């Protein structure tokens, strides 16, 4: 009776039927609450989170594990991508409708407000109200920047006041009998020029400049610091009109151009290399809060100092509030759990830890005032600026990356010294206006 033979064909048929049955069984959704052990033994909700690799990525992983300890019902699954391809990856995830529940994005590229405008981001107003979450803990500028069309689309994670720092080589200043620039920012463009002239030197007597006085940033956000100190802007409040060729902004551009090509105290792009400051070949350099990380490269060659960038003709220091948001995807199936994670990212401890890790602090005054950060003198220079920071302005049609490319390529002839600002800036401004006139991205 056990002599029944199964042919190869029959074996394959039976095997196929068996596999099909298993596959069908696997497709049957689990019955909610089917576990006889109750809620305590239910699988935790998995919240996917997208962020950048590197310092921030390590920070997210560390904070995720801490969050899970506090919230055993929620698991954070980090999916981190390199900065260079981060936003392409976001678009692919959106196109494939496989976006994670929560993610990091940026303000300056215009993507944050574009996502808000296109319905990619979940408006948080209802959850904030239901949770009685206190938004008063944040810098007010954060909430303005995080809002779009009257709704709040993220909780601010980290923030800074822009490219407002004039970092300097304390050793070079001391060697040239220059006092350190005032920590309260009470100095002027003219003062900075005098400093730069003294610091610019031909140290080996070969007729070539070996040490420059000042390195200004050439990107639009660096220029904005000079422009706002002079009463100018790159575009109007609604982000619809280019103001690059306004007299105030043009005067700021002329000043930076003169530093490079009239006074020869700043390296032109052709003379500039990335390591000039840390190798002691530049006295002062414009940068943001993150410039403090130069300490690691400088080592014991010299001591790093920082002061606010100087005041322009208006008597104010230029700045622009910038923040990095933690957002919830509108298609998330677990918005409540996602909101818990976003709140965690916006809490005080996270805000302090990310600054300690080498990035910038959380968007809350209690973070910036915490003794763990105020022990660093350069941090305090930026804290003072934060309390007077000027608001964020972005292009009204969210085409920040197009604006940046148009500006950078358009202004190259100026920074290279091929053209005078007055000849080029009106043309660049017209090109910016063409971008601003396009429909929303």
């Amino acid at each position, binding site marked *: 009776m056990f002599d029944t033979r199964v042919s190869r064909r029959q074996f394959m048929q039976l095997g196929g039927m068996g596999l099909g049955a298993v596959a069908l069984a696997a497709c049957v959704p689990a019955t909610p609450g089917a576990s006889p052990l109750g809620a305590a033994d239910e699988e935790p909700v998995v919240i996917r989170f997208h962020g950048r690799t590197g310092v921030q990525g390590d920070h997210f992983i560390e904070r995720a594990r801490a969050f899970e300890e506090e919230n055993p019902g929620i698991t954070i699954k980090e999916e981190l991508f390199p900065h260079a391809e981060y936003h*392409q990856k976001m*678009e692919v995830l*959106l*196109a494939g409708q496989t976006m994670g529940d929560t993610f990091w994005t940026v303000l300056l590229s215009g993507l944050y407000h*574009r*996502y808000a405008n*296109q319905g*990619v981001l979940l408006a948080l107003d209802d959850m904030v109200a239901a949770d009685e979450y206190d938004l008063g803990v944040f810098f007010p500028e954060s909430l303005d920047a995080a809002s779009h069309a009257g709704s709040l689309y993220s909780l601010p994670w980290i923030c800074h006041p822009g490219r407002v720092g004039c970092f300097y080589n304390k050793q070079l200043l001391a060697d040239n009998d220059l006092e350190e620039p005032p920590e309260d920012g009470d100095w002027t463009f003219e003062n900075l020029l005098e400093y730069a002239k003294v610091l610019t030197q031909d140290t080996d007597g070969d007729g070539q400049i070996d040490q420059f006085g000042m390195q200004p940033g050439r990107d639009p956000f660096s220029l904005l610091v000079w422009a706002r100190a002079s009463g100018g802007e790159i575009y109007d409040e609604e982000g619809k009109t280019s103001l690059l060729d306004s007299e105030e902004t043009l005067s700021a551009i002329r000043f930076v151009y003169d530093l490079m090509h009239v006074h020869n105290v700043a390296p032109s*792009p*052709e*003379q*500039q*290399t990335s390591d000039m400051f840390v190798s002691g070949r530049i006295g002062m350099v414009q940068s943001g809060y993150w410039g403090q990380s130069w300490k690691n490269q400088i080592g014991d060659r010299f001591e790093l100092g920082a002061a606010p960038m100087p005041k322009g003709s208006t008597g104010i220091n230029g700045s622009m509030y910038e923040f990095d948001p933690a957002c919830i995807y509108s298609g998330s199936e677990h918005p409540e759990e996602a909101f818990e994670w976003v709140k965690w990212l916006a809490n005080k401890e996270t805000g302090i830890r990310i600054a300690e890790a080498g990035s910038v602090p959380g968007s809350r005054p209690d973070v910036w005032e915490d003794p763990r950060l105020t022990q660093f003198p350069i941090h305090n220079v930026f804290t003072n600026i934060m309390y007077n920071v000027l608001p964020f302005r972005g292009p009204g049609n969210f*085409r920040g*990356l*197009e604006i940046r*490319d148009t500006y*950078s*390529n*358009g202004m*190259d*002839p100026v920074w*290279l010294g*091929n053209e005078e600002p007055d000849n080029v800036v009106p043309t660049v401004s017209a*090109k910016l206006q063409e971008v601003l006139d396009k429909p929303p*991205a």
Partner: protein
Amino acid sequence: MTALKEVRPEIQAGPRRLKVSLKRQEAITGYLYILPWLLGFLAFTAFPFLASFYLSFTDYTVVSQPRFAGFANYAEALSGDDLFWGSLRRTFTYAIVGVPLGIVGSLSCALLLNQQLRGTTLFRALYFLPSLTPLVALALLWQWIFQPDFGVLNFLLAMVGIDGPGWLSSIEWALPSLIIMALWTTVGGGQMVIFLAGLQGVPQELYEAVEIDGGGAWYRFRHVTLPMISPTLFFNLILGIIGALRVFTVAYVSTEGGPAYATWFYILHLYTQAFKYFNMGYASALAWIFFIILISFTYLQVRASRHWVFYAGDTG
């Protein structure tokens, strides 16, 4: 049992089989072998190819659904986009200068290495090495060579009393810099190896005949070598032009299209529109325009080749 077989002969014969000829069986086996590739081709090449054609007639920003826009993207490219014609002109300049230099350089190297001298194998390997360098590494390496202050190129120029330019940061010199960078890989790379193979296929008796007739080296090259390797030359020319027109990586890594759009090539423009600004519909139109340009250009070259390419076995 015997009686049963007589009544139902199919029992003895077993299950009925479809009669398939050997030729057809072989064909089915062959198709099964290529099936994985075929599925990959359909999913990752044919479908995106057709999808991009459809998308080129839409306004599509990835997040939103495609909206039909007719020929608007094509009209925008041809008449509304300042960077379209500029990037096309720059790309053709790069190809027109770079391809002949690459062909002449790689043919010269191949001629030298075809001399059957001592150490030829070593030199062949050395010349070929640069072409094995990944383009991103190549771009980063040349950024240092071109560095105005302490780059090796300006150092060497300074030794002969020349004050070198800013190279990649100079509006005038950025494009020539990228051409030099590309030549470093093409002169000793695949083109040279293909030329070498072509040269080694030239019958020796033709050279002997020229020698008997008293022809010199130039005469041998002009009237024997060049006609005999003309199919190889044609092949390298076609691939060289297509490769040059597709220039992207070196500009993306070294200059990001700058300064002042000096190295903003067509494919960089397309990439920027697609993956930076997310104007996928417009980028698809740019891709199709480029496809048409490439096809037309290649067709013209094939037509022109009838007048100068010599195929030894061609009796027509």
